[in-house]
């Protein structure tokens, strides 16, 4: 394509991602968004104005060289695009799928003023998928330094930290408590949003090209303590995430049919419960599901519930099938990624906004029968800047449900801190760590991701893993930087 004028670029419509049709995809676990074609990606790349002072990079927690990779793309230089991408981001195929771009890079795009920012996330995914298929520039590790680093947790923070350190020539061992690596990418995010094959492919690169060793079935704090790791390794990075589920403090939470989104999603994603009995772990949803909360995890749980209901119906004929999102605030405060909420509604999830459960009621066998709720209204903004919900007196009502999934956020798992007295924690259970370096209060121990921030995003965890890797490398090169 000849060089375009700015006006011509502005005339190109934002390229929509092809997806499976809503009434098809809500009955399967295949990926929803199918990815841009080469033609679409080139056209989308033409929309970028190549600003003299680009702001998009500021919006990226790992500082991806956005204008550079987009320029390479529109020049047809896919290899160049990959190289620009990999300079800052090791996992573009993952980030392109799960980052909340609308509040990060794309929010800073100059075209966003008209609501038509360049689809940076979709282009990132395009580049990431190309590289996963073609392997044009596999990472090459620097000569061995002889230093050994233990990474605890194989989620986005741990994996990013591990890859960066291994590229610098350090010998990296990842300890994972579950039987498969990937952390929340694996147990939390469903196949229809992030296929397991993508995670597997990225992990394979880490093992094959960078010599990273992954030890599954190792629950640090129990199998080995942090102190024991310090005795064997030069540095330890904690990327253990926020794995503990929260339950509402209301009556009836122990009835059969009430579960955490963590349990539900782990059964579906990690254990492949949607393929029971081919896989041994069962997962059960009823005819009327209420998911409490409206974050990404709530959307994942709601959309997985829909799919299980449809698959069940295909087997056992009809019957009522409803999935509700029950959220105490309004549409405007929904914390989920825009695309996830949009997809959930398209697929048939019903939203009950300004609604809060106050009690779950069971039948004589101890199974959930209904949920007593109260309507809410919005008051003044709270500490988080969101308007706080206030119950409306006398507005209580019962909603008929047989499954209640609590998606109310998670907090760090304390097991890793067993016998690690030097590691200071906040009252929320998160680890105290320096935001720039990831250093904890225990020498030679770094931390990053949800274990420090509480439940946040994949990309912010990756950013923390990256910053910690840089500081660990400084320390390994010269231990006097952390006396």
């Amino acid at each position, binding site marked *: 394509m000849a060089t375009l004028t700015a006006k011509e670029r502005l005339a190109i419509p934002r390229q929509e991602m092809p997806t499976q049709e809503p009434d098809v995809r809500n009955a399967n676990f295949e990926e929803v968004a199918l990815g841009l074609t080469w033609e679409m990606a080139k056209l989308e790349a033409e929309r970028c104005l190549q600003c003299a002072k680009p702001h998009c990079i500021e919006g990226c927690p790992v500082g991806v060289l956005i204008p550079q990779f987009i320029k390479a793309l529109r020049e047809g230089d896919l290899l160049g695009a990959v190289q620009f991408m990999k300079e800052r981001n090791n996992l573009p195929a993952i980030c392109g799928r799960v980052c909340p771009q609308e509040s990060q890079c794309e929010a800073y795009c100059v075209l966003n003023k008209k609501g038509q920012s360049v689809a940076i996330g979709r282009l990132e995914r395009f580049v990431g998928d190309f590289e996963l298929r073609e392997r044009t520039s596999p990472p090459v590790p620097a000569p061995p330094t002889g230093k050994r680093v233990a990474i605890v947790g194989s989620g986005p923070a741990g994996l990013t930290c591990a890859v960066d350190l291994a590229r610098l020539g350090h010998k990296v061992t990842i300890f994972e*408590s*579950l*039987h498969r690596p990937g952390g929340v990418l694996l*147990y939390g995010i469903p196949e229809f949003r992030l296929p397991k094959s993508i995670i597997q492919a990225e992990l394979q690169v880490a093992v094959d090209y960078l010599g990273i060793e992954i*030890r*599954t*079935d*190792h*629950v640090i704090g*129990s*199998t*080995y303590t942090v102190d024991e790791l310090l005795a064997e390794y030069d540095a330890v990075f904690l990327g253990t995430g926020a*794995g*503990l*589920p929260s*339950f509402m403090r209301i009556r009836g*939470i*122990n009835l*059969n*049919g009430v*579960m*955490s989104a*963590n*349990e539900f999603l*782990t*059964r579906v994603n990690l*254990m*492949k419960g949607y393929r*029971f*009995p*081919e*896989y*041994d*772990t*069962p997962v*059960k949803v009823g005819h009327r599901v209420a998911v409490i909360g409206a974050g990404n995890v709530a959307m994942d749980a709601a959309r997985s519930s829909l799919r299980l209901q449809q698959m069940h119906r295909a087997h056992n004929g009809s019957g009522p099938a409803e999935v509700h999102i029950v959220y105490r605030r309004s549409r405007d405060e929904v914390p989920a990624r825009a695309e996830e909420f949009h997809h959930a509604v398209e697929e048939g999830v019903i939203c009950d906004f300004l609604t809060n459960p106050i009690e779950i009621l069971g039948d004589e*066998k*101890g199974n959930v029968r209904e949920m007593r709720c109260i309507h809410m209204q919005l008051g003044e903004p709270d500490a988080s800047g969101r308007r706080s919900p206030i119950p409306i007196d006398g507005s209580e009502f019962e909603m008929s449900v047989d499954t209640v999934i609590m998606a109310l956020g998670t907090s760090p*798992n*304390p*097991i890793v801190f067993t016998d690690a007295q030097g590691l200071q924690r906040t009252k929320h259970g998160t680890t105290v760590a320096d935001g720039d370096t990831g250093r904890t209060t225990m020498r030679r121990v770094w931390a990053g991701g949800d274990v420090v921030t509480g439940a946040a995003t994949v990309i912010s965890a990756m950013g923390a893993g990256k910053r910690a890797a840089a500081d660990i490398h400084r320390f390994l090169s010269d231990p006097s930087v952390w006396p």
Partner: protein
Amino acid sequence: MYRIVEKQVLSDVTKLIVVEAPHVTRRAKAGQFVIVICDEQGERVPLTIADHDQAAGTITLIFQEVGKSTMQLGMMEPGEGLFSVAGPLGHPTEIENYGTVVCVAGGVGIAPMYPIARDLQAAGNRVISIIGARNKELLFWEDRMRAVSDELIVCTDDGSYGRKALVTVPLKELLEARGHDIARIWAIGPTIMMKFVSQTTQPFGVPTIVSLNTIMVDGTGMCGGCRVLMNDGARFVCVDGPEFDGHQVDWANLLSRIQFYREEEQLAVAQWQQETAGQGRQAETAGVGGGV
């Protein structure tokens, strides 16, 4: 892969396996458990560690074949390997010198009770053990339990061996005869047995520790499927337990929760039996050199 190095058939439905898992052995203590997975399609099954050998790097697991996964595990032979073994998980038993203690174990619960009784005796306690099973065939490790107990009472439900009684009967007699001497009681076995043991000891006010076995996925506090209601709120069996004060447990809730996947469990068993029966037939056909 974690290799099975030894297998014993303790009864038709009770098997013992010794598994190489040196990462678990290092810090394993009485009362803790592991999560095992048979193969890549398998589910995560919590099993209490019945014994471990530091030098050999092995753990001993005893299980009753009650579902598809334990049936599959029961068919595995030495030389074969488990896909996953994670642990040690949960809090260890609080071993102290309490004075006189009673260890009540029912059925397959005898396995996890053995290291607890052994360590309690080693700590200076006078250990009275009561072990029971439905019948003689299901009873095992009587000799081992005798070796670590100052007194041992054996009973079966049907009277085919030892005393014909439920374990709660000799327990109640003990409490009536010398209840003031007994400092603490442990009970491990089927949920219903632990419930009745707790009810038996409650009027005597003797602290009673039960080791709960609930539905569980990860075993590290992530899923909360194992939550059990206590008088003062919910607890996770995997990270807060597995041992709890039996007088605080909401037994009705627990008994209902462990039934939640009953239909699915039955379906999985039926399918497994069909598959393994099918394999048997194929082997026979191949054996006669024909093929269909």
